[in-house]
């Protein structure tokens, strides 16, 4: 996230689980890039696998989406 923030010229606030994604300063493009690169590293994209995946609101939700991917 820090690498993309630097590329996108975004200043990240301190990250914790309760921080809302909106407050990170990332726009939808930033998240689209993050999801694509995580998919390349981890081999999964939890937002595409599950049709009814709730769109995450906080950093915690976002990380949770990856933790809850069925193995």
């Amino acid at each position, binding site marked *: 996230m820090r690498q993309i923030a630097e*590329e*996108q010229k975004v200043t990240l606030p301190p990250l914790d689980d309760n921080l809302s994604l909106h407050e990170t300063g990332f726009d*939808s*493009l930033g*998240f*689209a*890039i993050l*999801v*694509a*690169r995580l998919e*390349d590293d981890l081999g999964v*994209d939890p*937002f*595409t696998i599950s049709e009814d995946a709730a769109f995450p609101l906080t950093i915690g939700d976002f990380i949770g989406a990856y933790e809850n991917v069925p193995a």
Partner: protein
Amino acid sequence: MSPREVFALRDYLGPEPTGRAISDARQLVSLTDILLKTCLADRLGELSGRSVLMAITDQLLSGLAMTEIDGVARRMLLCPPDLNADHLQTLIEDAGIDAVVTDHPERWAGAAIDLVVTAGAPSPAAATAKTERPTEWLMLTSGTSGVPKIVRHTLEGLTGAIVADVPARSGAAVWATFYDIRRYGGLQIFLRAIIGGGSMVLSQPGEPIGDHVGRLRARGVTHISGTPSHWRKLLMSGSASGFAPRYVRLSGEIADQAVLDGLSRAFPEASIGHAYASTEAGVGFAVNDGLAGFPATLIGTNRDGVEMEVKDGSLRIRSTRTAHAYVGRNAADLAGSDGFIDTGDMVEKRGDRYYFVGRRGGIINIGGLKVHPEEIEAVINRHAEVRMSRARSRRSPITGAIVVADVILADADSSGRSNEIREQILADCRASLASYKVPAVIKFVSSLDITAAGKLARHDA
């Protein structure tokens, strides 16, 4: 109207100038005495007035048969070697085919076409052929899925640009092309060789690039044409040294500044030009100043009678070199009611030049913002260590699509520095492109698919 003199390819063949030949990797056929020979076993007369399917696998034999049949048949349909056999029946019906010329007569034994003429190596002819009529040249469009469209040209239209083209008139040219001559881009080069009094060196399917260049050198090729993808492949092969053509031509895809500069370095003595042409619109123009894009002064009517205009960002062309019509039962109109053909090639004016930015249908949509992959590739290709690249769409759950890029490095040895180069490419992209156009992911690859027409394959476009 006074009757116009009908001309045909045989009018450009004869004992003078001497030393003309057409060759591929396996054989060389002299053109000096070709009018005294037949590759149809003296059966040319049977094709008089017929609609002929040219189903010849061998490219060289195809070229010889074209020169023999032109001016005798009513029409001939040229088939590129990769034509899907499933489409053949539709094409035969749409073109009203009633004769086949083939080097594989056994394949046509049970076919409904009653006249099958076998093509083979040239042998002495019993009589010299006479031109009877202007033969229609039917060509197939490339790059589309499904059944290709049939496009009707005349020899006069096909060769309209050649008379105006200075490099084509230089004497004793030995022409070569990476294209197959049964496609528009390749046929233009074949016709230049025939009409300009020169020789022709054909490509050979499956031949390694190093062997191909060796052959171009050995045959003394002076004028050569291919797509930017063909040329990047040659530059990457490291086999350009020792090959010194006088004229290097690019067409069929956008010639960006990086490939033009790469060719200037590889061929410092050559004149390097890029031409705009399509199967439907014919040759629009050629630019020989070594710069990408074309001067804005070409818009309007230029001195060869080609008219160009830009409408809704798309280049439109009207001239006598454009094809006459699509052929077939459900054929759409080729040109609009004003006679202009909409090429679907999108251009953008910067300063006093127009630049091609991509195909109308090839746009990537990122959350509602649109980008042409070619625009991104042009920036990536400017990096000195990049040989070629392909930008493409990748689906994204957030924005619908994002841009990703596959990149081939000029020197495989620099792959150890891929992170550093990736950062430099991204910095270049951020400096000259809107943020949504900057690739989200850059992947280094060792090759990119090239279509049979010599163009970068765009599966998602």
